[in-house]
């Protein structure tokens, strides 16, 4: 069973500039939560802060029983948090298969004792395009394929909570559809999801609950349906 993620009063900084102000959010086991906001609102910073990838963060960060506020990224990853970065960051000089191999963790069981359901074959079922690309270099595949690879690479580590940073960004509509289907399948498997998005349609198709960020502050917390009903709020925080 997955663990709940709890973030309370998170403040993050880049040098002397503060990027997040008292951000609080929760992700219950098996829940899909979306993080919405315009460019620069702090969505990526929130995910990076949870993962321990920003220079300085303060606040209460718990994953299940563990305090992850001062933990290094690799330890956080080993607890079962999987991070899929916005820029994809596929290892360009490694083959698709090697990229997946890197994502695999040393132990067959993850920190909480769950056995790893993910194998190359299982992932190739989820993302059929990747199967025939096994031997290709990560830098030589299309943007959509890289997005699938980067998710697959993180799944190899058998996360129980997946942090997805704008997965639909810059992809063709048909690819976004495939991706949406794959993400739903992950949700159905019982993975918790924290998904940052600018695409409200894509997000609302997946998410149960939503948070809206603006200039590093949480402006809205509620169900996706509540957000869809709040036309005024959507215009204020999300429309361009």
């Amino acid at each position: 069973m997955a663990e709940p993620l709890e973030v309370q009063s998170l403040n993050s900084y880049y040098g002397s500039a503060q990027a997040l102000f008292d951000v609080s959010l929760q992700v219950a086991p098996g829940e899909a939560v979306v993080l919405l906001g315009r460019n620069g609102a702090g969505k990526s910073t929130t995910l990076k802060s949870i993962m321990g990838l920003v220079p300085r963060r303060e606040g209460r960060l718990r994953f299940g029983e563990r305090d992850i506020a001062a933990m290094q990224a690799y330890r956080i990853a080993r607890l079962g948090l999987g991070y899929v970065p916005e820029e994809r960051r596929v290892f360009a000089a490694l083959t698709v298969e090697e990229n997946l191999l890197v994502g695999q963790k040393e132990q067959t069981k993850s920190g909480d004792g769950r056995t790893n359901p993910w194998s190359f074959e299982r992932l190739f079922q989820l993302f059929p395009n990747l199967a025939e690309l096994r031997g290709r270099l990560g830098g030589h595949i299309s943007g959509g394929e890289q997005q699938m690879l980067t998710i697959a690479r993180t799944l190899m580590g058998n996360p129980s909570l997946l942090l997805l940073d704008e997965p639909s960004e810059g992809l063709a509509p048909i690819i976004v559809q495939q991706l949406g289907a794959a993400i739903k399948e992950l949700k159905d498997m019982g993975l918790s999801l924290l998904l940052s998005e600018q695409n409200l349609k894509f997000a609302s198709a997946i998410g149960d609950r939503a948070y809206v960020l603006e200039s590093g502050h949480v402006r809205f917390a509620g169900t996706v349906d509540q957000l869809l009903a709040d036309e005024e709020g959507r215009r204020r925080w999300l429309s361009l």
Partner: protein
Amino acid sequence: MGFYVVQALTGLASASALFLAAAGLSIIFGVTRIVNFAHGVFYMLGAYMAWTLTSQFGDSVLGFWLALIVASLSIGVVGLLVELTVLRRIYQAPELFQLTATFGVFLILQDVTLAIWGPEDLLGPRAPMLDGSVTVLGHPLPSYDLALIVLGPLVLAGLWFLFYRTRWGALVRAATEDREMLGALGVNQRLLFSTVFFLGTALAAFGGAAQLPKGGADLLMGLNILASVFVVVVVGGMGSIPGAFLAALLIAQLNAFGILIFPQGTLVLMFLVMAVVLVIRPKGLLGKAEGASRIESRALIEAAYPAPGVWERSFWALAIAALALLPLAGDAFALVLTKDILLFVLLAASLHFLLGPGGLVSFGHAAFFGCGAYAAALLVTYAESSMVLALLLAPLLAGCVAIIVGWFCVRLSGVYFAMLTLAFAQVLWSIVFQWTSVTGGDDGLLGVWPDTWANDDTVFYYLVTVLAIGGILLLRQAVHSPFGFATRAGRDSMLRAEALGLHVKQVQHVAMVFAGALAGLAGALYAFSKGSAFPDYMGIEMSFDSLIAVMLGGVQSLLGPLFGAGLFSWAAHELSTLSYWRGILGLLIVVLVLAFPRGLAGIPAAFRAARERLA
């Protein structure tokens, strides 16, 4: 014909040791992004350790080869200890500090070697079964060379397997691309870094151990291999193992045949090849363009250099008054020491101009100091020039050398730039060192004395003081001139500066020539002050002494190099009576870097943080 074949085979044999050392450096750099100056000392330690072990167990074939391997592994462990105690703490520190720290480690281990094995050169043992020679097309070839020829490709194959057929290898290659992402995937980077450092060090040591029967062991081999290894790594493409192999073959063949055609200039040939390769392929033969953006040097300390305040103006007034009054004290030795310090300060200030405002980390700045010294000495020796003419021409000649060197160097950036400057300095050093008929080689040029009017100690002291202070103030003015703004703009954001219409590379080129000319002035004055010019004036150690001085003082402040160089030359003077003073200096450097990983300018912040912790 047979002769040439044997010559080529000899070249192949020396390529092996070079490849081993270069592969080690390349791997370490690829993953940790640290240019490890201590690498040369591990190569040397490998040879010494192998010497000790083979003298015990080297009588049988098995014993001999096991001794080489055990020697390499044990030096690998030494490397691992260095990684755990020193490097691990400074992965986040500015580049310049990492380099200084590894150079400090170099100095320490160099003196440790001296303490353990003594100053004598050690003769290499004969390898059992391979101590004879075979005849190839009527010419003899040492059998051991055949073993070395096999060894290179064997290690290459082993490394290829390790990097392309194991998960560890995939992790290492992934780390060269994006360390942070690797951490986010649950990979413990510390462990990876440590294993990589162990492997890289062991490879260097194996290179040193393997060439032992051919070349023996001596205390200079560490420093000597560094320049060649850097050339190989840069020519092959930073981080590329096959590239390092290819480049090692190329350089070794060049040496094997170059020595027949042009015996005085083997190092020059090596450099020429590097220059050609880098002009055609700036990332080396097999270097990848994709990795390029991530090799860009980590943000150098971005210093703003405010205009001088009251405090600084009064400092200058006091300093100039003290220097003017010093001869009245009547202490002849104080005058000599002050002269030396002032010239070193001028050298450091000119280097600071490149490092600080220019953001250009030069490892070979002493080259221009030496050029100035030799220009003056050659003019006096062969053209019977007066001192005044020599002092006018020497900076110009040093500047001309900087025009040529700079033309190549500014095409590169970050680590490539640093390595290329070092390689050029080594080439100039080797020209001076090898061209005995003109430069006197190791014996130097003597009898470079000031004109009669300046032959008086006090008069010459004033001359040095006026010119050195003048040079330092000129550098200071330059920082606050439009030219200085342009160099800083190029340093802080190349793209934005270019978008504003600045030709950044050209600005950097001019900065190198300017700094080179002033270093040349310091060198020329130094030659007249000592009455001689020696190859040491442009050696690696001189380049590093000036780097350390700048670092000690802090890159952020224009007064930094003054204090740093002053402190350094005073300390060197005080310590140099001790037998292991270089090692002690190394220890001081390492401790300093570890205690203040953000530089001396970070000391106030460090104290503030400590106070907050206590409160």
